């Protein structure tokens, strides 16, 4: 029993770990120890990866945004400014952390931690490779959504605990957005689940490998909805209205400084990674690339896809202006939700037809792919035209929201 | 072409005025809600029309009774109230007595309504007045027609209510309010006796039907003691309504109402009710010597006492009021002397000339603006027709041949002479007194020179309008001629014939010496009055100073009001009974009630949480129930 049977198992780090644990078990160690070790090792690896990726993307995002805006961006620290994120990290770590006098200290302290935890936990079910998954839950897809949604609570707590009206406004916005877009997100994922017949992430990847296709072709509409909803959920520009600096200073983290602020930044990036990873797994075939995974490590393929999706976010941020809150809410309820419902219905119909006719996948799937792309484009365009046609002259949604949010009571300093 | 009156038509006699009342009330209500015109003149015509219909139907009913065998038309009673042992029927009793009364009530009421048309023309409460008058007349007609004591009692109280409403018609006046309350309370005192008599007789016989009770009394089913008590109780009610001593005190005060109301009350409706009630139950009195004696004594005392009081009153209407009391005493005394027919005959004739006298007084008031005779005088020149009618009525009241009063009063005297000699002497004294105060009234009002009247614009008194004079003329004609109705003893036969048994009532015998003596006493009285008030041979003040103790007593009305107000009301009731009741109420009843209330409150505050509508309490109850029931189940079935 050697630690590594064949060198190419290094393609998948999961294999290596599994082999190591097996080796440990053979040495008569109690059964819970390998479990604990593997968990800790995996967690460390995930954190390390996430932090490194974040450092890289802080630099990449600033450089890319600068390119898009026709300027240079950070270019002093290190070659091409590559050491800029390190300098930023040092700055953040060494800065003073201020707690506002009127703040609810427990909640104020709890919020940054609580925001990061769900993001990291969600990473745990992402399959980076064939066996490179910390916990291969059979409900992984749902798990990601469920865990991600808890982050919103802590965003709210950050705003609430800060005793700052801008923070509270940002928190309320984030809650309102979550309630709206969570539905869209789940419905988008549901269509995928209908196609695959499983919500285990590994199954979804292998389904795409088996049929030698990516779900992006079969579920373009779902991808669109999920991308939009997720970018809202993770507070990425152009829908970062919860921290819109031109409106409410910095939203829910206005009062945060130092590493606490850094935690929010980290949470935002990691959540972005989770979303990108989800897209990569669900729609882009995960670690598979038409047989190339036999030669190239699967995690490399997966990371490229992930970074590519994340690059899309940066691109969007540099391109699109920020939306207004009532536009964003209306978009969710009036545009995305109906489309997603139709999408689920469509997916169900297609699967029924496929199962009933027992046609070979090679025939059915291309037809569905072409049809779904056409239907998706048609629906988006048609629905947009319809909505534009039916647009109400006065917009009660906006006035209502402004009034509700404007009514928010916040604790005056002297009351504490 | 004779046809017996159908029951529906008979009921229409009662229902027509009541219907008029209902229509006027509803119209007034609608008007107060903003519908219709502000003041419709129709209410008077509606009332008059309804009462005219009642009169016509009453005459038909009277004709039917006269023609019928046994002088009664019997209608089957209808079931009204049926509560296990209590079976009350409602029926229309049409016999001689009620037929005559119906005609009298409707006739007098009609003339009064026509008169009111003029008298009340400018009163703001015009519609209300006629509504009440309709109700009053209807109630009285219903009372007369009632075949059942409970039915009678309902109308009896309705009459009382109407008298209250009408006496207090000008409720803006303090005196009117007081008088109305007084009338209501005093008559209520009598009604208490009537009600207890009703309860007693129902307990004894289980019957409230008048015919059945008479039957029971005649067959001896009712013990003499019970009968005496019953008769006494009924008489208490009758005395209250008919203003007999000692419950007469409300009637003079009742002059605060509009004069036509006084006319109606005194002549035909309210006060006649008492006499009618005794007459209606006459067979029972005839069987009870004690009750009969009581009636006779009270009647005699009332006749003399009221006559004396009439001598000293200065208000013309009060003189007439005491006169009424006195005449009612005559009737009661007659009834007490077994003279049913003379009493009702006197009630009959008296209704006309007393109504006429009141209308005359109203006419005088209309001209002078006052009721105080000291400010009148010499009115014969200004208002000859009123003078003429009043003289006719006054002489009829005194009993001068051949006017109506002569016939009826003479019969009363005759029957008293036959049955109770002392009653005769009392009544004869009453005749003198009547003549005296009526003479005084006439001389003070119409003789001598005008003494100015009351208030502004009455310097030149004038004759009343035709609408007032015509009914007076009609009544005057009746006052002259109505006494002749009984010339052939027709009415007496009618009345006595409708009694359930022969020999209950005694029929008077006409005697020349009796007639001559009564007329002579009457003329004597008028003559004395002429000497004092007409020729002023002796000044009234001198007489007063000579007989000052009597005058003082009379001017204080035998201290009756003082007795009632000072001793009974203030002293006994207010300081004694009321104080004790108040103490008992505050300390005892209130203490008990408040104590219970406090206890309930304290308990409720604890218990209230259970039903406060708070979900949490309900949830707690559910949880408790679950715990308890589970524990019980575990213990019972481990």
């Amino acid at each position, binding site marked *: 029993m050697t630690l590594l049977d064949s060198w190419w198992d290094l393609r998948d780090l999961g294999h290596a770990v599994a082999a190591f644990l097996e080796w440990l078990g053979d040495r008569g160690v109690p059964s819970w120890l390998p479990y604990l070790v593997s968990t800790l090792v995996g967690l460390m690896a995930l954190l390390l990866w996430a932090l490194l990726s974040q450092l890289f993307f802080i630099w990449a995002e600033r450089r890319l945004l600068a390119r898009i805006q026709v300027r240079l961006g950070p270019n002093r620290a290190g070659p091409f400014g590559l050491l800029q994120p390190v300098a930023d990290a040092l700055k953040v770590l060494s800065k003073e952390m201020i707690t506002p006098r009127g703040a*609810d200290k427990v*909640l104020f302290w709890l919020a940054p931690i609580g925001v990061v935890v769900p993001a990291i936990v969600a990473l745990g079910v992402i399959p980076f490779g064939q066996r490179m998954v910390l916990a291969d839950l059979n409900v992984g897809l749902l798990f990601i959504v*469920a865990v991600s*949604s808890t982050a919103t*609570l802590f965003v*709210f*707590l950050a705003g609430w605990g800060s005793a700052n009206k801008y923070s509270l406004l940002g928190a309320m916005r984030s809650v309102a957005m979550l*309630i709206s877009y969570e539905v869209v997100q789940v419905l988008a994922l549901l269509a995928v689940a209908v196609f695959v017949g499983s919500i285990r992430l590994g199954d979804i990847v292998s389904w795409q490998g088996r049929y030698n296709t990516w779900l992006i072709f079969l579920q373009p509409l779902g991808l669109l909805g999920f991308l939009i909803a997720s970018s809202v959920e993770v507070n990425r520009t152009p829908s970062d209205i919860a921290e819109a600096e031109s409106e409410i200073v910095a939203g829910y983290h206005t009062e945060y400084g130092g590493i606490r602020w850094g935690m929010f930044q980290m949470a935002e990036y990691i959540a972005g990674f989770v979303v990108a990873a989800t897209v990569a797994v669900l729609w882009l075939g995960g670690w598979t690339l038409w047989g190339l995974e036999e030669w190239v490590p699967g995690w490399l393929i997966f990371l490229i896809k992930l970074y590519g999706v994340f690059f899309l976010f940066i691109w969007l941020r540099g391109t699109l202006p920020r939306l207004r809150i009532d536009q964003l809410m209306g978009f969710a309820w009036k545009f995305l939700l109906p489309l997603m419902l139709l999408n689920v219905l469509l997916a169900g119909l297609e699967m029924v037809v496929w199962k009933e006719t027992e046609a070979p996948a090679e025939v059915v799937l291309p037809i569905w792919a072409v049809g779904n792309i056409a239907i998706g484009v048609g629906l988006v365009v048609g629905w947009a035209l319809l909505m534009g046609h039916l647009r109400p002259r006065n917009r009660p949604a906006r006035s*209502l929201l402004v009034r*509700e949010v404007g009514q928010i009571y916040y604790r005056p300093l002297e009351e504490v | 072409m004779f046809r017996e009156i159908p029951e529906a038509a008979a009921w229409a006699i009662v229902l027509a005025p009541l219907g008029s009342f209902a229509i006027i009330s509803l119209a007034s209500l609608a008007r107060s809600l903003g519908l219709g015109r502000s003041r419709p003149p129709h209410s008077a015509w509606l009332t008059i029309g309804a009462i005219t219909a009642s009169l016509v139907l009453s005459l038909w009913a009277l004709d039917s009774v006269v023609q019928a065998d046994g002088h009664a038309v019997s209608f089957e009673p209808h079931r009204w109230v049926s509560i296990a042992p209590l079976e009350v029927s409602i029926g229309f009793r049409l016999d001689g007595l009620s037929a005559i009364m119906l005609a009298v009530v409707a006739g007098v009421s009609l003339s009064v309504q026509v008169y009111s048309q003029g008298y009340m023309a400018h009163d703001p409460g015009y519609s209300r007045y006629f509504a009440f008058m309709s109700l009053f007349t209807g109630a009285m007609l219903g009372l007369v027609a009632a075949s059942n004591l409970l039915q009678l009692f309902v109308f009896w109280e309705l009459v009382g209510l109407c008298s209250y409403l009408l006496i207090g018609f000008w409720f803006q006046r303090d005196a009117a309010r007081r008088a109305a309350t007084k009338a209501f309370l005093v008559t209520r005192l009598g009604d208490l006796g009537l009600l207890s008599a009703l309860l007693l007789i129902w307990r004894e016989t289980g019957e409230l039907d008048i015919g059945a009770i008479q039957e029971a009394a005649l067959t001896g089913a009712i013990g003499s003691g019970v009968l005496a008590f019953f008769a006494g109780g009924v008489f208490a009610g009758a005395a209250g309504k008919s203003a007999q001593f000692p419950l007469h005190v409300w009637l003079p005060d009742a002059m605060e109402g509009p004069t036509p109301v006084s006319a109606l009350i005194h002549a035909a409706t309210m006060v006649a009710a008492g006499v009618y009630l005794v007459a209606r139950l006459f067979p029972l009195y005839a069987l009870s010597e004690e009750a009969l004696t009581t009636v006779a004594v009270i009647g005699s005392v009332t006749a003399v006492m009221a006559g004396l009081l009439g001598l000293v009153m200065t208000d013309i209407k009060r003189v007439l009021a005491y006169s009424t009391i006195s005449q009612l005493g005559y009737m009661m005394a007659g009834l007490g002397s077994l003279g049913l027919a003379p009493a009702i005959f006197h009630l009959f004739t008296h209704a006309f000339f007393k109504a006429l006298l009141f209308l005359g007084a109203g006419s005088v008031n209309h001209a002078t603006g006052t009721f105080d005779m000291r400010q009148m005088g010499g009115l014969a020149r200004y208002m000859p027709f009123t003078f003429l009618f009043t003289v006719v009525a006054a002489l009829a009241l005194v009993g001068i041949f051949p006017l109506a009063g002569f016939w009826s009063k003479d019969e009363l005297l005759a029957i008293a002479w036959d049955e109770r000699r002392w009653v005769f002497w009392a009544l004869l004294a009453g005749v003198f007194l009547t003549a005296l105060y009526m003479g005084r009234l006439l001389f003070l009002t119409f003789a001598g020179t005008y003494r100015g009247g009351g208030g502004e614009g009455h310097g030149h008194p004038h004759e009343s309008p035709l609408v007032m004079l015509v009914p007076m003329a009609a009544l005057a004609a009746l006052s002259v001629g109505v006494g002749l109705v009984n010339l052939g003893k027709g009415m007496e036969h009618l009345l006595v014939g409708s009694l359930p048994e022969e020999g209950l009532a005694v029929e008077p015998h006409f005697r020349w010496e009796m007639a001559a003596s009564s007329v002579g006493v009457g003329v004597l009285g008028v003559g004395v009055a002429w000497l004092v008030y007409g020729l002023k041979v002796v000044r009234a003040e001198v007489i007063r100073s000579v007989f000052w103790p009597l005058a003082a007593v009379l001017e204080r009305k035998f201290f009756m009001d003082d007795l009632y107000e000072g001793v009974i009301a203030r002293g006994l009731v207010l300081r004694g009974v009321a104080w004790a009741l108040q103490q008992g109420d505050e300390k005892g009843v209130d203490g008990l009630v408040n104590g219970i209330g406090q206890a309930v409150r304290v308990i409720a505050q604890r218990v209230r949480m259970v039903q406060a509508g708070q979900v949490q309490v309900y949830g707690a109850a559910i949880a408790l129930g679950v715990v308890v029931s589970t524990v019980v189940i575990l213990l019972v079935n481990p």
Partner: protein
Amino acid sequence: MTGVGEVAAFWILATITVGSAVVVALVRDLVRAVVALVGSFLGVAGLFILLSAEFLAVVQVLIYAGAISILMVFAIALTPRSARDNAETAMRWLALALALAMVGLLIAVATVTEWGPQAKEGFQETASAIGEALLNRYVLPFEVASVLLLAAMLGAVVMVRED
């Protein structure tokens, strides 16, 4: 279940769950109470995983920790003056007595009763099994539940309407 990991996980999760619930009862600030409540919900989710009900655990996180708690803080934020006041009513002692009685009763029943043989192994995979059960055997309750959700949605919308 006898594994060390499982036993340790049970006690840790039990402590989190019950401890957080106690904190919910004790804490006066409503938002803090919600945080503690979320802790309790997550503990329950962990217990579900321990009971080999992964699907339920995820649903628990999604709906309780993710949705209901968010709804609660939303409601707290929109009913501002109420947030500070989470005091007890007058019947707190009665409630405490009742709750103690209820807990005592339930624990007594749970420990006294003979539950019979206990399964050694948990379920292998429940998500699809539950899905099948919902759409076959329990399809009628499933439809009823969907009608209920629709009714609740409409009711909530109607109730919070402005006019």
